């Protein structure tokens, strides 16, 4: 009973995670024995200097990169046991991605971008319409629904990207340096929205960042240096 509760609570678990590049020549340990647990509803920032391994850690948590050893368990599932198509489906249903440079589909409108993953999930039109309208409203970008990414500001594009990540109702959102390309006003607006989603809808966010404004907003800050967890501070 205790174990079951523990598993429900921990959305992300990494156990003795290691990622070594060039293992046969000059080994570089990008991640070296990292074990962290992230619970549902957390607003976590993974911080560290450039090259510390925070992006590598995020890639492995997102199932985009394979660890050299150790394991990543998402919602009780060891993702190492999934084959390529299963892993693709798993990402689609469980993980929301927010990229530093937004990565919206330029030929689609903001609304179509938000609905894109729901389309992959084969959700009904009614569901897509209501979910995208609701999210765009909450993100403050309802009026941009028919515009294409090129017609949006950086801040608006990133909000569309967050709405897209949230639309599929994932277990958590992985955001790699989400504010790196934004000005301070847009950063502040985006952080407020994400914090609100975290508080009101209990959405789990995991950021990699070295932006102090993001760090200040985070409820938990995990500092990675040279591939190792240097500190893990909950506020």
């Amino acid at each position, binding site marked *: 009973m205790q174990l079951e509760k523990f598993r429900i609570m921990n959305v992300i678990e990494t156990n003795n995670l290691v990622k070594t590049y060039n293992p046969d020549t000059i080994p570089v340990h990008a991640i070296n024995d990292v074990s962290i647990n992230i619970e549902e509803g957390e607003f976590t920032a993974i911080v560290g200097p450039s090259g510390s391994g925070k992006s590598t850690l995020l890639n492995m948590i997102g199932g985009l990169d394979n660890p050299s050893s150790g394991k990543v368990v998402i919602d009780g599932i060891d993702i190492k046991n999934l084959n390529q198509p299963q892993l693709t489906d798993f990402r689609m249903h469980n993980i929301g991605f927010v990229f530093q440079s937004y990565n919206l589909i330029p*030929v689609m409108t903001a609304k179509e971008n938000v609905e894109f993953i729901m389309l992959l999930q084969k959700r009904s039109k009614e569901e897509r319409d209501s979910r995208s309208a609701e999210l765009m409203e909450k993100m403050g970008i309802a009026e941009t629904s028919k515009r294409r990414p090129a017609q949006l500001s950086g801040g608006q594009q990133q909000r569309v990207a967050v709405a897209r990540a949230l639309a599929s109702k994932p277990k958590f959102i992985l955001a790699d340096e989400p504010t790196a390309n934004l000005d301070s006003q847009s950063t502040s607006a985006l952080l407020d929205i994400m914090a609100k989603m975290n508080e009101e809808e209990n959405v789990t966010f995991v950021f990699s960042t070295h932006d102090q404004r993001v760090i200040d907003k985070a409820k938990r800050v995990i500092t990675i240096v040279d591939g190792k967890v240097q500190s893990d501070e909950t506020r």
Partner: protein
Amino acid sequence: MILSLSWKNIWRTRHRSLVVIGAIIIGVWSLIFMMGFYNSFINAFARNSINNEYSHIQIHNPEYLIEPDLATEIQNETAIRNMLVRSVSVEAVSSRRKVNAMIASTKTSLGVQVFGIDPDDESKTTNLESHLVEGSYFLNIKRNPILVSVKTAEKLKLKLKSKVVITFQDYDGNITAASCRVSGIFHSKAPRINERVVYMKKVDINRLVGHDGVNEVAILLNDVESIPEVINQLEPHAKDTVRSYKEVAPELNLMENSSRITKIIVTAIIMLALVFGIINTMLMAVLERTKEIGMLRSVGMHRKSIFTMIMLETILMGFIGGPMGLGFGYLTILILGKVGLDLSSFSEALDDFGIDTILYPSVETSTYPVLMFVVLFTALLGAIYPAIKAVRLNPLDAIRKI
């Protein structure tokens, strides 16, 4: 969803897609034009060979085909002619006495084949009278009038009313000679006729060889499609060998077959060039979208969907360019098929091959759907490598490239 995304992707770099679509249009158009042009050569050659030389059907004594001796005659010519006169498919019939001979002028001599003909029948069958460039059609000369070609006249230095002597074996195998006068000089559209045939009246040559008979019956039909039907009608009546022009002149059959092979080869070459054009453009499109494709894979788009998306982009461009190329090609052939393509500046060379100087390109209707299929197949072929490249992209690239 994938179809819609592919359609939108085509128009993302409009100019590049238009280049591919333009290449497809030009490729298909040039293919149709080339086919039409080539068909016009083959058709003109076949038409001239049939209308001026072979006709649609010929009848010979089977032994004549082995050893062309004037003594091996058609066995029941009258019954055959009676049957042919009743057939609605038959346009004209010419019975010929064919004699190998030497023709000599005061200057020189050469080997020829004398066609002993009924002037009216031959004119209806091979338009011989209309080929006269000088003189008359067996008129104005009372005894043994003869028609020679322009080439023969030049070689023997003959003019109208010049005297020539023809020497040949008669029906009994004796060498005999006769004096003739040039009644007319012709220029046929069939090079072989110009090269080695002279015409005399059948009654004259039969008198000279000492036997009344014919060695060949040539039948011109209203329509080439009627050949099997008329051959079937003839077979119970004819004791001789009945052959279509394709059997009489295997070079025509060979030409038709080789034209088919040539068209396939040219189609393959043009489509191959198109494939490489498509590969180049689509590869550029894929590499430009590395980050986006990586993002699509990251958020849960399967490899087969990415593959389908790239394939669809190319197929859709084929669906735009293909029908447009076919349409322009069809219009070009339609117009040129009516007004003709004037190649007068090459008239001498064309004449040597028995081809008209105004050509009328034509393409069989059945070719168009086949070409559409070929275009789509080409588009698919050209899209495979870029699509494979796209599915092999690592989704991690999306994050690494941020």
